[in-house]
């Protein structure tokens, strides 16, 4: 079913589906010679963020994805795809390295949000996200994000604050989960479906509101999804690479200034 005909609640369910393409599949399908780079150099290596370098159609790039894991052990270790402060710091380290070596950055995002836990609080979850937003705004290389599932609040924004944000057809981007929203609004998280309609979190609405650059069709076959993402990334990278570094950074600032 195409997203136009789906209810917001159905899009939320599809965005959370276990059948979706994973970040690691996207990297495997799009990037040649991928070499993973671990760690934030500040004492941690969060498995909920996987990043590294490789070639995209021959060109060196840095690629970063959120990772929900597939086995029960991996899911626990990644907190079901909710990054810890160290994950955001790893991502920032890799993006700053990319800027240093003038490599474009590709980000793939599917996260319910930044992990809420005692260690995450004491490790500066808020500060880690904040520093990504601050520093990424000044990095003079193209940064393109594809949201391929859930784009959960500040935890997603920390990897979606570059030049362009694209969304797979069955994905969401929102300030909090429909369950959280319903529980605040009506003190009843079971009214999540109703909340989803109100929240305007589907790709079609977000594109209408100018929050994203576009929507990528998402057939069931993962290889077709990867090819569709590939086509968009090739076209958009080509265009962004025409810009001088200062122009790129100025254009990025304008993207957010208009909100």
């Amino acid at each position, binding site marked *: 079913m195409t997203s136009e005909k789906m209810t917001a609640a159905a899009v939320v369910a599809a965005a959370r589906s276990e059948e979706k393409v994973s970040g690691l599949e996207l990297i495997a399908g799009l990037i040649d010679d991928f070499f993973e780079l671990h760690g934030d150099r500040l004492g941690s290596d969060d498995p909920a963020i996987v990043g590294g370098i490789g070639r995209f159609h021959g060109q060196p790039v840095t690629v970063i994805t959120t990772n929900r894991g597939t086995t029960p052990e991996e899911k626990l270790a990644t907190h079901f795809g909710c990054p810890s402060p160290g994950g955001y710091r790893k991502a920032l380290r890799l993006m700053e390295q990319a800027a240093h070596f003038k490599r474009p950055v590709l980000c793939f995002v599917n996260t319910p949000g930044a992990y*809420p836990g005692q260690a995450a*609080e004491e490790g500066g979850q808020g500060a880690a996200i904040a520093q990504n937003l601050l520093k990424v705004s000044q990095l003079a290389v193209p940064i393109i994000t594809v949201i391929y599932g859930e784009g959960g609040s500040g935890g997603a924004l920390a990897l979606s*604050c570059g030049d362009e944000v694209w969304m797979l057809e069955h994905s969401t981007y929102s300030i*909090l989960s429909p369950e959280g929203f319903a529980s605040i609004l009506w003190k009843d998280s079971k009214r999540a479906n109703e909340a989803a309609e109100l*929240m305007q979190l589907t790709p079609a609405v977000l594109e209408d509101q100018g*929050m994203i650059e576009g929507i990528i069709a998402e057939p069931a076959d993962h290889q077709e999804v990867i090819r569709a993402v590939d086509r968009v990334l090739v076209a958009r990278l080509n265009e962004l690479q025409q810009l001088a570094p200062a122009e790129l950074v100025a254009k990025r600032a304008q993207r957010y200034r208009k909100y």
Partner: protein
Amino acid sequence: MKLYEKANTLSDHRVKVDPRADDRVPDGLYRRCPICQAVSSAQQLSVYQACPACGFGLRISAKDRLKWLVDDFAAYDTDLTSSDPLAFPGYSEKLAAAQERTGLNDSVLTGQARIDQTRFHLAIMDPTFIMGSLGTITGEKLTRLIEDATATRQPVVIYTASGGARMQEGIHSLMQMQKVATALAKHHAAGLLSVVVLTDPTTGGVTASFAMEADITLAEPHALVGFAGRRVIEQTTHEQIAHDLQQAENVLRHGFIDQIVPRDQQRATLVKLLEIGGCADDE
């Protein structure tokens, strides 16, 4: 994941500190400090509205803060008002009621300020305006203030107080985080100083953006400073969290705050920091 739930609900003992109640407490009545339980008279709380025993600053409106903080203040952008971008049911009424009650157009007061001979750009978030939540106009006022500070080569001081994102503005609220961050990054790149003072409560999307992006980060004693809500953390981790996990003192111990400064020392502290800490340009 209910990331911003707590940010908008806050823990029970803090909700009871209704800042609007301040106006309703005549002289001679007593208030119990939510942190140390000391009972103080209105006179003891003084103009600072701070607990004389532990220094905790009660939640006060931006205009009440101005009274003791600065010698002079000229407000900017008082005419902007939210376009209600999601056409959210009941929001325009809620906004109008908050505007009426606070005399502000949104949850932050911005302008040109002076303490003694020191001039700077100042933003004060108002926790009584829809929980100090980050709306499009909050973000716009902050961005304009910071951009003007960059253009006129002034330092910026931001007092944060926020329940986090403005639910009724959805993704538009989220984008304010990046808009303000970009303005701060340019201000920083221009060699200009920014100081943030974290006040009770600073949470959610505000903590995850401009509250944690300044050159110098101060906090008021015992202020709640955190990202996720206590209830969300407990529901997610199935563990009771320490009562002081998100108190400024604990956040300082973990390296995210430079100093904790009680209200009666903030004027002198800001003057000192703005003189020593940056501001290479002379008046």
